[in-house]
């Protein structure tokens, strides 16, 4: 089978170029065969040998659809140009090929699993591309910024090089901020035996600290017994899962789940992030040998759903005007929280305008799967390949897009920017904090407020 002809200018990424210059063919052959023999099994073989080459999966992929049906972006093409060749040639491929594999697997696929849902056999293309990422990662062929993020995970156990003191300091600062709204609010650190451990992703303390203030207010209003760790293990995100460095992925997830066990909580509630849920709920535990996390983890969507449904949080004033929401693949298609998201959106919005397609059929924002973490070199192609979803957003006529996922948030901001949609991008908690009722006794006293 001839390699697919790619008609676009290749993106330049220094780390990939350096790695290409360094790799030897013996090394490549060894790693490919090692991964295929030791880390895969019947599944990969069956997928490759069952695929009837019908091309039906193409229709599922936003890369393909957004790029005028460019064949090189079809899911089956992505496996054809990577794992099929590795298997056929038994690992005898060159460094340029591995570089192309990384481009395809790391930067041109979000592992969103939409194609798996549209293949008549249920062939999991995303799984095969993750195997390709694993091979690339073991060879050191990982886009620069993604690799840097993985280094951050490895060194600090969080995504953003946040040092232990910066973390605690930020929490203490946000506790004070929260007390501006609700003077009795507290962000309890290291409270053993609390009901809930709240965990977030690295960018929250680094860039979006107000979200930590928001949750402090929400927890107080809902009257919940919660805590956050003052040690590493607070970050639930995991780019190592996406680069293919599964050992670091597991180390990060293990620490996160052991921190919850150390704090003796009943559950972990996590902020609005899709891939972090995937890592903490599936990929991390699976590698560790846990069927599910030892302490259950609850995604923000489900958490807010429970709070609103049970009346622990009441809505005082719904957000006005048409508002829509992205459906983050990792918590919707791949975790089934679609109807809960619709419920909470309707609860806090006067006019929730749904996307078409919605729920598990919704398209990825094209930031997921680590692609946005591949950084500036790849941004143009990534945003260009989100055209389809930009049209879907536009059709809703909303003034705001809610993104209950950090990657989606950044990705959708890029979309709004590039396609001049003129919409705001918000997390759900930002809407909730505006809409929810703060009981009289929790409000600042009059004289203090003046």
């Amino acid at each position: 089978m001839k390699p697919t002809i790619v008609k676009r200018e290749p993106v330049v990424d220094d780390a990939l170029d350096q790695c290409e210059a360094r790799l030897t063919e013996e090394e490549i052959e060894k790693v490919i065969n090692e991964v295929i023999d030791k880390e895969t099994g019947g599944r990969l073989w069956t997928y490759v040998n069952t695929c009837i080459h019908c091309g039906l999966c193409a229709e599922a992929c936003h890369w393909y659809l957004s790029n005028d049906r460019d064949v090189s972006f079809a899911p089956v093409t992505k496996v054809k140009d990577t794992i099929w060749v590795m298997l056929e040639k038994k690992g005898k491929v060159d460094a340029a090929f591995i570089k192309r594999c990384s481009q395809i697997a790391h930067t041109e696929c979000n592992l969103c699993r939409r194609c798996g849902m549209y293949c008549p056999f249920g062939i999991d293309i995303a799984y095969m591309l993750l195997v390709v990422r694993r091979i690339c990662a073991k060879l050191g062929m990982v886009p620069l910024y993604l690799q840097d993020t993985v280094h951050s995970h490895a060194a600090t156990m969080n995504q953003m090089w946040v040092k232990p003191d910066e973390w605690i300091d930020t929490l203490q600062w946000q506790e004070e901020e929260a007390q501006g709204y609700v003077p009795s609010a507290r962000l309890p650190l290291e409270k053993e035996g609390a009901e809930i451990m709240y965990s977030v992703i690295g960018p929250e303390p680094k860039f979006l600290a107000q979200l930590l203030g928001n949750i402090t207010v929400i927890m107080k209003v809902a009257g919940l017994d919660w805590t956050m760790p003052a040690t590493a293990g607070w970050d639930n995100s995991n780019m190592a899962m996406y680069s293919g460095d599964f050992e670091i992925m597991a180390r990060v997830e293990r620490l996160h789940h052991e921190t919850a066990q150390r704090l003796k909580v009943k559950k972990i509630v996590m902020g609005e992030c899709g891939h972090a849920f995937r890592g903490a709920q599936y990929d991390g535990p699976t590698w560790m040998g846990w069927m599910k996390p030892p302490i259950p983890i609850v995604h923000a969507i489900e958490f807010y759903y429970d709070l609103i449904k049970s009346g622990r949080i009441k809505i005082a004033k719904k957000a006005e005007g048409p508002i829509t929401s992205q459906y983050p693949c990792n918590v919707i298609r791949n975790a089934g929280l679609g109807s809960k998201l619709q419920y909470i959106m309707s609860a806090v919005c006067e006019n929730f305008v749904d996307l078409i397609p919605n729920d598990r059929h919704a398209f990825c924002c094209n930031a997921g799967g680590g692609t946005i973490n591949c950084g500036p070199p790849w941004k143009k192609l990534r945003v260009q390949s989100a055209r389809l979803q930009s049209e879907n957003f536009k059709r809703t006529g909303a003034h705001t897009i809610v993104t209950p996922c950090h990657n989606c948030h950044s990705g959708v901001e890029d979309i709004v920017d590039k396609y001049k949609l003129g919409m705001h991008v918000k997390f759900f908690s930002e809407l909730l904090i505006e809409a929810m009722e703060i009981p009289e006794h929790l409000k600042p006293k009059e004289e203090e407020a003046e």
Partner: protein
Amino acid sequence: MYEFVSGPLVWLAFIIFIGGSLYRIYKMLSDCKKENVVFPHMSLKHSLASLVHWVIPFNNQYMQKRPIFTIVSFAFHICLILTPVFLLAHLVLLDESWNISWFNIPDGIADWMTIVVIIGCIFFLYRRLTDPVVQNVTDGSDYLLLAITALPFITGFIAYHQLFAYKTILIIHILAGEIMLIAIPFTRLSHMLFFVFTRAYFGSEQGHVKNSKDW
């Protein structure tokens, strides 16, 4: 020649087909077992749910989006499986040698079903030649598989209508049928064997593990 092709070779073909299929399935299952996580992630309920949504036409969003393909694909596969199994000519042979027999489709209908399969093959061939995505993942083996699939039907049809040298065509037909049977376990035609398993796994992973659905 005819005796050989319609005697020992049939035996051989069926032995290879059945034995090969069993071996393939066994090998796949044992390789999956080594992978540790596969079976713990499976659930019967979600496997069946997935199959129900993908074996019944138009029972999932994707099939609804592509009505023509869905109709062709189902017609093709239904006729492909039913025609040879319930064909009178085949049953007569079976009856002669083994003295067993079952319900047969009237020859007229079977003839039309054969045409459906041949049309299906032409449709798939057309896609393969024109659809850029399919084209890009096509090589000789794909045409060969189409040919292996089509040939027993084409030759069977010719034989039935006695259009050319009947005896020769019949021998070719039987050979073609045997090739197809032998090919099933060892080529991508094995999708017939694995369909149930890949669906069951993906359905389980989406439903049982990920609390979602795969249709």
